[in-house]
């Protein structure tokens, strides 16, 4: 019985999707550069399911700074900060304290539960499809939302 199954499996294609290449590259950065210049071919990843929870997207302009997201974040990845843009525009004495509140999300600490998306009264948070987030530096620019 088992032998029959094994024989059948011998002629089947493997289930594994070989992302990013058939043979794992020694240096991913190097490989991606080669893909960009057209020297290598990228095996596409398995498509993400609908409503996938990837890297968070933040619309800073519609945010009112209520801070509810920071209250429900299980990993305390959300920090409440003053609006930098506003400070630059109204650069006066004491202006920092009058600046409206905004949030800063550290994606390296995010657990991708999307609880902040659910509680946001202005719907300015969203989960995107982006999932390639590995980085050596936890505080890398790509891992802080909104960017600098």
């Amino acid at each position, binding site marked *: *019985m*088992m032998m029959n199954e094994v024989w059948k499996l011998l002629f089947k294609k493997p289930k594994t999707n070989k992302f990013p290449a058939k043979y794992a590259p020694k240096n991913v950065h190097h490989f991606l550069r080669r893909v960009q210049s057209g020297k290598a071919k990228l095996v596409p990843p398995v498509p993400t399911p*609908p409503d996938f929870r990837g890297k968070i997207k933040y619309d800073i302009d519609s945010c009112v700074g209520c801070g*509810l997201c920071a209250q*429900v974040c299980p990993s305390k990845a959300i920090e409440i900060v003053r609006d930098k843009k506003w400070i630059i525009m109204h650069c006066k004495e004491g202006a920092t304290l009058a600046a409206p509140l905004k949030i800063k999300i550290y994606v390296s600490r995010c657990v991708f*539960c*999307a*609880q902040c998306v659910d509680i946001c009264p202005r719907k300015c948070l969203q989960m995107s499809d982006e999932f390639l987030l590995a980085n050596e530096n936890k505080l890398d620019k790509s891992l802080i939302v909104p960017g600098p």
Partner: protein
Amino acid sequence: MNESYTIPIGPLHPAIHEPITLKLEVSGERIVGVDVFCSQVHRGIEWIGMNRNNAIQSIYLAERVCGICNICHPLCMVQAIEKAAEIEVPERAEYIRTIMAELERIHSHLLWAGVAAHEIGFDTVFHYTWALRENVMDLIEYLTGNRVTKAIMMIGGVRRDIKEEGAKKIKEGMKFYLENFKKIEEIYLHDPTIKMRTRDVGILTKEDALKLCAVGPTARASGVPKDVRQDFPYAAYGDYGVKAITPDVYNGEVHGDVFDRIIVRLLEVKQSVDIINWVLDNMPSGPLLAEKNLVKLKIRLKKAEGEGIGRVEAPRGEDIHYVRLKAGEEPFLSWKIRAPTYNNVLPWIPMLLGGQIADVPIVAASTDPCMSCLNRVTVVDTDKKKEFEITKEYMHELSVRKTRRLMRNGR
């Protein structure tokens, strides 16, 4: 020669995810004494729930108590909070919870079956079972958005609906498992290799199971018809009417050995498929959450006072969460988790006694204690004051060699 050795296994060790120490006294190959030491690790999960987090944050913390049981822990905690704060859960949410819990059971049992096959050195079956398991993982990913941490539980309901497309996918998935169940059954229950390594190995008698409070499939395999879904139904199980599966359903006899645990788990996969199909056909319509506005829910939980207990039949057995809330305080006043493996560790003692070292991996694995970390065993020769180590690889090799030996002698 009548000298005995003591082999400490753990704290970071064998066939077990959780750090636990096993001290085995061996005389030659026979195990003559077993001692188990628990509480080797403290992650402070309950402390965080009682000091740092509010109730909503704690759902996601409970989800991370265990990687595989990430539906039953939040479900259990959420039930406890609902009882404490007197929140009524809408019926549709209860049905979706049932589907999720059963999908988790299918994936957990298949994972366990694969690991059990790996422990006895039958890696073909291991890969075959895990390939079958991929289908249910894909289904979970489609329904909840992520493969492992599902983040679907919420106090007073669930966060995601199962739409028509999702229901169709579940039906297809369940059909796939019903078609393949015959194959799995044939491989696991009629293959001579698996039978000779697991029959009459690691026997737990009914009396011992009752005395040591074994739970879940471990207790059921010893002939104790004990199942929270049957005894204290929660979610939609009361409407379905679950019956605890004992091995005598399959072949009319109870041995209480590892083979019986395989039977129970495989039959439970089939039972889960039946439950999911029934739940899908009888799903009522209605709201998903008792309180849609999360801010209102937060305020309500802050005002709530009382205590509640949640009981859930996890794939490994009965899981209990106790939660006490105090008015005016956001974190829990107290939170206690009793995971099923806690009860299933003591039964190792009667199971391992009289066995062989080569049987330790499969017997320990048979209670499904989150496997891995089998990295080091130190063998202490008490007479000669000599120490040497058995690595995970060596122990696994011993197990594989025993299979080979039995196969040669059996033919």
